[in-house]
């Protein structure tokens, strides 16, 4: 068994198993936690709480008018690299074929050359994001190992992917194996680090919004 066979065979199996197990574990452990009973009388109906929660998901996804000058650039950066990541992961033909081999579903991709341009742009934005995290005193204070490691492992996947596509360094077979191994590593890390925000972000915003709406506040 060579490195590529290992990466997309046993290593991928273990990574997918750990990913599924970890995500299910953390989501359920979080969802089934008991929320302390609020003994105050609700300011509004349950319906208002639910709509308040849903509205918060939208309102928190956009910079607040009052702070747009300070947070707008950061949010634009965040949106841009997330869109780039989604485009590369979901619209690159080899990725589509890989996902088809796993799940049996397929869709149309973008030309490889366009994906290469998007990848390089996303990589640049990713470096900018790290620069912002390191140079901004507040963000630096809020950041811990989890933030930097999650950044590193995502970056590793992107760099190895670009190297494999562009045949930089060594043979395509080895580069592809290293790329898939880095994806395996990301899948293993995913449930236990801040990458879990992909699953938590909308439910936590909705819950926050619903609790605040119960108190009559909008968020």
């Amino acid at each position, binding site marked *: *068994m*060579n490195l*590529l*066979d290992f990466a*997309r*065979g046993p290593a*991928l*199996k273990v990574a*997918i*198993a*750990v*990913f*599924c*197990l*970890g*995500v*299910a*574990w*953390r*989501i*359920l*452990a979080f*969802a*089934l*936690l*008991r929320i302390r009973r609020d003994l105050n009388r609700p300011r509004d109906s349950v319906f208002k709480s639910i709509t308040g929660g849903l509205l918060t998901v939208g309102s928190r996804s956009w910079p607040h008018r009052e702070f747009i000058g300070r947070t707008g650039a950061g949010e634009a950066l965040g949106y841009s690299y997330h869109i780039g990541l989604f485009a590369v992961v979901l619209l690159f*033909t*080899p*990725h589509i*074929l*890989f996902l*088809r*081999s*796993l*799940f*049996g579903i397929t869709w149309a*991709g*973008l*030309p*490889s*050359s*366009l*994906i290469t341009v998007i990848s390089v742009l996303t990589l640049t934005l990713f470096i900018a994001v790290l620069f912002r995290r390191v140079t901004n005193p507040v963000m630096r204070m809020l950041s811990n190992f989890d933030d930097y490691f999650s950044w590193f492992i995502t970056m590793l996947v992107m760099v190895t992917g670009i190297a494999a596509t562009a*045949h930089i360094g060594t*043979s*395509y*077979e080895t580069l*592809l194996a290293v790329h*898939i191994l880095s994806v395996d590593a990301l899948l293993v890390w995913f449930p236990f680090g801040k990458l879990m925000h992909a699953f938590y972000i909308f439910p936590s915003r909705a819950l926050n919004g619903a609790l605040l709406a119960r108190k009559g506040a909008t968020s």
Partner: protein
Amino acid sequence: MPLASEQLTVGEMLLRHGISRRGFIQFCTATATAMALPPWIGAAMAEQLRNARRPSVMYLSFQECTGCFESLTRSFSPTIESLIFNVISLDYDDTLMAAAGDQAEAALATAMKDNFGKYVLVIDGSIPTGAAGAYCASGGRSAVDTLREAAKGAAAIVCVGTCSAFGGIPFADPNPTGAWPVTAIVGDKPIINVSGCPPIPEVITGTLLQFVSTGRVPDLDEHLRPKVFFGNTIHDRCYRRPFFDEGKFAKSFDDEGARNGWCLYELGCKGPTTHNACATIKWNGGTSFPIESGHGCLGCSEPGFWDKGSFYAAQPSAEWGKAGAPSPRRAVELGGAAVAAGAVLGVASAGVSRLRQHRSEQEAADHDRKEL
């Protein structure tokens, strides 16, 4: 064909056949060009060969289909006849030689004795070791015994074809004959693997010629293949590569993409992970190669190519063991089982957490009661 090496230099042999020095240099230059060597190597190769005695070569066939030898006979540059009549002394080959039975075995024994330590041993086919080697025997001896004996006096061993280089199809799961590649049997001789199912004829003759003319093993990759022929992937040199970069793929063998000559990647082409010279040297005197005739590369020059799932599964596909093609169902089963295990853990974690929360609330309530 000679049954034993004649003590003539290659130059003397050429003169006997009426081939001029100039003609021979042209032949060597053409061969050097085919091997992507610098032009001056051709003249040096010619000079070296002219003054050398024709080296003895023995071609032993074991567990194989003779496809590799069929391929070798179709070499255009150099041709098999020019190679065996002018450059090497092919002292044993059970497919070509007129002798048979005891005469053939005697020819092999004599050639091995006379050229001990100097001959090139070419091996075609894997070596079965099951049933004490009984799956492949000739002249009352098993392939494994013949190989061990012949290897003792070899200057180098050239493994022609994926079977002798990596085990090939006989080595594929479940390997009923206990087949092995030459590298698993012989460990103390220089080994050059010329893999392929079959290998490109010019790659076989070119490798032999390079070793014979220089007396040195060429630069080899990690699978002991000459880098000059196996240094690039087929994908690197494929004329359909621009379509890959543009994202234009044939989706079936009879769609518009296939008719337009688009990339065969989605149809399972193994070009990106296959090292060989098919896209440059091509086959049948440079006429075509499998991708040019509309079928994806099978990856036949790579180790274990037979056990790597479907030939028609796209390259980056997940592999789920030797059992066959990637199966979405197996991925879903694996993911489903992991999600179920994770759910149990999640419920248990939440339960423990609730229990702790309940206890701490009880303790707080008790504490408040006492204070009151």
